[in-house]
């Protein structure tokens, strides 16, 4: 059907009608605004790099001074080390007292392990010694499957409940590296920061204070 009142718009009208459209198109043709361009450039550059960084270019990385052990887990397909624990345990080896025979002595428990305060687990279902310690071989820990676990590799034990933390720790979002960001990966063990008997950090005063900015 033909509309008799229809007429073609003049060139001027056409231009006026197209102006808003042009205003939309032109900046796109000219490229994104500077801030936006920077954003894509910077994060794209970061994301585009898949080759592992060659740590050898950082010349001055020395081995960490603390004793370490090779972790029994892998980090991105490679190995890493954790801080050792046994040296920090005052009475290790436990088997020097805990032999096959029962340990007897007046106040022996209080005198030797009186400093241990267990504050681990929910109220009412707090953990007891043999939840983590192997009750036959005292030099080892034991998980719920009955596996013997070395004191240096306590993350294997902690991870059975705290699996989210362990996953983060393996990746690097929980815990921390020792001394260097470069070089071989050496990380803190669970027990380096947390007291396994009372893992929550105690409340205390901050190390310093801040004054208002000028």
């Amino acid at each position, binding site marked *: 059907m033909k509309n008799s009142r229809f007429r073609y718009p003049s060139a001027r009208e056409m231009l006026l009608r197209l102006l808003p459209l042009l205003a939309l198109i032109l900046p796109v043709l000219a490229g994104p605004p500077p801030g936006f361009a920077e954003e894509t450039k910077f994060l794209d550059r970061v994301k585009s790099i898949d080759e592992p960084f060659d740590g050898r270019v950082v010349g*001055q990385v020395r081995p960490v001074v603390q004793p370490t052990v090779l972790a029994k887990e892998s980090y991105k397909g490679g190995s890493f080390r954790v801080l050792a624990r046994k040296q920090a345990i005052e009475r290790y080896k436990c088997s020097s007292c805990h032999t096959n025979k029962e340990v007897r002595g007046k106040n022996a428990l209080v005198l030797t392990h009186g400093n241990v305060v267990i504050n681990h687990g929910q109220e009412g279902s707090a953990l007891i010694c043999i939840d983590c310690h192997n009750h036959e071989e005292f030099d080892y820990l034991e998980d719920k499957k009955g596996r013997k676990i070395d004191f240096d590799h306590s993350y294997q034990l902690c991870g059975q409940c705290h699996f989210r933390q362990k996953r983060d720790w393996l990746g690097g979002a929980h815990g921390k590296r020792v001394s260097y960001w470069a070089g071989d990966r050496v990380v803190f063990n669970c027990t380096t920061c947390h007291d396994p008997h009372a893992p929550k950090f105690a409340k205390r005063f901050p190390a310093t204070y801040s004054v208002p900015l000028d």
Partner: protein
Amino acid sequence: MSCKKRDQEKNCPEGTQQKTTSRRTFLKGMSVGAAAAGVALTTGCVPGADAAASGELKLRWQEFFKKNYRLMTQEEKDQTVARLERLAALKDGLELQIGSEPPIPQVLYGYAFNITRCEGFMECVAACVKENNLDRKTNTQYIRIFEMEPGQLDPGSGDGQYYHEVPVDNKFYMGTQCFHCENAPCTKACPTRATWQEPDGIVVVDYDWCIGCRYCQAACPYFGRRFNWGESQVPREELTVKQHYLGNRKRPRGKMEKCTFCIQRTRKGRLPACVEACPTGSRVFGNLLDPDSEIRYVLKHKKVFRMKEELGTEPKFWYFID
């Protein structure tokens, strides 16, 4: 001006002090010519015989006319660093190890801060003050920790001056410092180009080219920069002797300073002092260009956000939640 306050007290006769304290007199002296300026520098503040004999004057002269750090060749950098070490030994009897390590290729530093884990112990702040030889008199700090109500995400509404037992139940803690923006507004504001971003992403200040106008402080939307109103007062036994030209070396009076991701440490592969001091592991530092780094893990697997992201400053400092 060449005649520093310390020398005035020590060496300057009464009369010359009056003369040299005026900027105009000094500029007049300069206009006569290089030779006359030299005379003004040398005679304006007559050093003691021992200082002259040991070449302190010559060192100060060379330091005065050195270039902007970015225009120096490595040789010139080594020379100025050697001069600064020698001057520190002559003036204060300090044995410093000032470095001028260049950026490491294929490295872009990034930082992440876990707001779930931080418990506000402020060990990072104390470690930073110690590492960077910050002024103890005015209590300058590069890092701030804010005690925040749940639901807040702007440190401006948090309490930055708390001093009580932490952590307080149902509060969380958020740290701020220089975020080393990729698109840093502070570097654009500087009229003397005394501040810039290094290829490894660290925003640095050349303290000897900074004129102390504080434009950069006004330009920074994160309050990341600090101005020193006087020379920093650091107890001798607490001084960190391992320094970097762009990092924790002694800043002259009236200069801008800021967090440098502990450039003197990180360029040697070490962690910044705050990361090393953190007792809760809330701070993650690493190379953004290394796909195996911890910082990349955090960015990939955690909920992250940056402060005032809408400004387009591109901070290389992410907050994350467990």
